[in-house]
């Protein structure tokens, strides 16, 4: 067990931010803490790094309790969203900074800094000032500096969101590559679903200071524990129906389930809908918008449900067309509708 968080509570003057949160992480794992802004994910990261004081709970790293350890003795190194390179130091001095703090001699630490800069493809920039670098270059230096601290746990705080699209992809790959090379345990704090889904071994989904769900990207996406969790990944369509005698029934759909009897909503995503087949679920084309790489078509079911489906290639549809679509459901997810509503 590499990182273990038990019942962690953090409160600011303005109120509680984390409510008794628990989380475990394996050695060498890449975990994303995903959630909307204000959900407390950055606070969680800062609590792990010791930057904010905690009101209750425990944090263990490699079995050692670090809850009361001062920031600089934790080895939980953060790459901040705004990089936080020291503007009065050169690039090499920045990277050498953690080594200086460890008491490494000057020549040795500058040599190590040069090496690390090479690893992040920033060789030759040793004597520049941070202000002379582009955003992507600064990010590489910040990464190298974090590596120099030999992190027991590397924390990436929305690390890529300040970069533009193309650079982001490149940096993500670099981080994954460095993670393998240095065999690091990494936590990525992000609100970007795609980023979390594509990079992580596991995702911890957070809302309002609580951990809602923790699992592999596949689990979290396909088996969300609540409508809130499902909606966060977007593109959800819900078909209302009922469970009676072990069967869920909705217009055009019927399958067995183990849920108790009552009213439910079935979670569907656009990939469940196929319009090329002659199925028994009629839909009408409402809008067609061409977006370059694909075309998004809004389809309205007879039950009033709106589907947004993306097609690649030429779309031979007209607004107003009625199609006979089909629904295929592999791992159905049902959410109970409380009778009060």
């Amino acid at each position: 067990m590499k990182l273990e968080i038990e019942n962690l509570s953090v409160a600011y003057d303005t109120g509680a931010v984390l409510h008794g949160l628990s989380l475990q992480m394996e050695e060498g794992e890449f975990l994303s803490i995903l959630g909307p802004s204000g959900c407390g994910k950055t606070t969680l990261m800062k609590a792990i790094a010791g930057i904010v004081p905690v009101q209750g709970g425990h944090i263990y790293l490699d079995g050692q309790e670090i809850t009361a350890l001062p920031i600089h003795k934790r080895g939980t190194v953060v790459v901040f969203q705004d990089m936080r390179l020291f503007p009065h130091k050169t690039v090499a001095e920045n990277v050498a900074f953690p080594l200086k703090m460890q008491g490494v001699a000057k020549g040795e630490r500058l040599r190590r800094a040069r090496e690390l800069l090479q690893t992040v493809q920033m060789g030759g920039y040793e004597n520049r000032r941070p202000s002379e670098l582009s955003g992507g270059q600064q990010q590489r230096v910040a990464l190298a500096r974090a590596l120099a601290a030999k992190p027991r746990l590397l924390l990436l705080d929305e690390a890529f969101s300040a970069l533009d699209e193309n650079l982001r992809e490149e940096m993500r790959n670099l981080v994954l590559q460095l993670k393998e090379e240095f065999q690091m345990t990494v936590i990525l704090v992000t609100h970007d679903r795609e980023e979390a889904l594509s990079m992580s071994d596991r995702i911890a989904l957070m809302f309002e200071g609580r951990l809602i769900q923790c699992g592999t990207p596949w689990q979290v996406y396909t088996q969300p524990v609540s409508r809130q969790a499902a909606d966060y990944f977007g593109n959800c369509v819900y078909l209302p129906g009922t469970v009676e005698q072990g069967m869920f029934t909705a217009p055009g759909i019927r399958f067995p389930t183990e849920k108790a009897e009552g009213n439910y909503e079935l979670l569907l995503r656009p990939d469940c809908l196929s319009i090329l087949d002659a199925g028994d679920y009629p839909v009408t084309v409402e809008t067609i918008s061409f977006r370059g790489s694909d075309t998004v078509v809004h389809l309205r079911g007879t039950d009033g449900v709106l589907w947004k489906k993306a097609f690649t290639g030429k779309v031979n549809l007209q607004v107003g067309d009625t199609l006979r679509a089909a629904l295929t459901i592999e791992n159905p997810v049902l959410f109970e509708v409380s009778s009060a509503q």
Partner: protein
Amino acid sequence: MKEKTAIILLLAPFGLLMAVVAAAVGNVLVQSVGYIPAFGLTKPTLDYYLQVFTRADFLSAVWVSLRIALFSSVLSCILGVLVSMALIRCGKTRGGILYAIRAPILVPHAVVAVFIIQLLSQNGLAARVGFALGLLEDSAQFPQLLYTPGYWGTILAYLWKEIPFVAYFVLAFMGSISATLGEAAENLGASALRSFWEITLPMSIPVIARAFLIIFIFAFGGYELPLLLGATAPKALSVQTYLAYTSPDLLQRPLAMAMNAVMLLLSSLLALIFGSLVFRLNRRMGGGK
């Protein structure tokens, strides 16, 4: 062209004030070479400067004022930065305590003189406390801080007012550095003290230098405090100058102006040195944020 008119109109009052400052400086310089037609002095001469530099009372006045300014500004900056860091570390960068810290900025210098007299004169509260604790047997044993050539009373008065000024002046900047870069340094393995020395302090030097310069020049030319708390001899430069300025002997007037000119010169020189220092520091930090 319309924009040009707007700019000129907007800058007009500022320009007027600057013209007044320029006029004052010009008057000082012109009168200091002995050109005051109103007094019947029309022949420019450097004699007054020569006199100023050879008169013992003037030279000691320069020394007194430099000493006051140097002690006040250096100690204010060191202690003010300390108080500022204490505020930041204790998370008190707004609200109640900050108002208390700002209070001395609002207290006029003359009132500070009253404070110092009541606390630090030989029969002041500090001496009484010393007596009550059995540290002194007599008020005369309390060190003479006031009305002495050491000008310690004056310096302490400036400290009372300027330490909080520095603390408040640098607080916002140091606070933001400490919360971002300082935090990053600690995260990379620096202790709180190390992070202060390596990151927060060096980054804050331009701001601290500005506070230093403001205090230095103010204390260097300050009038009330050395007047009220200082010795009769040697006098502080401003007090000495004003004495000459108001002398019934009109020939003292150009002498006073020569002293003023020297004061101006020293202030500007210091500002120039500091200005270039700060400029270079800012450049090194890439324009400086």
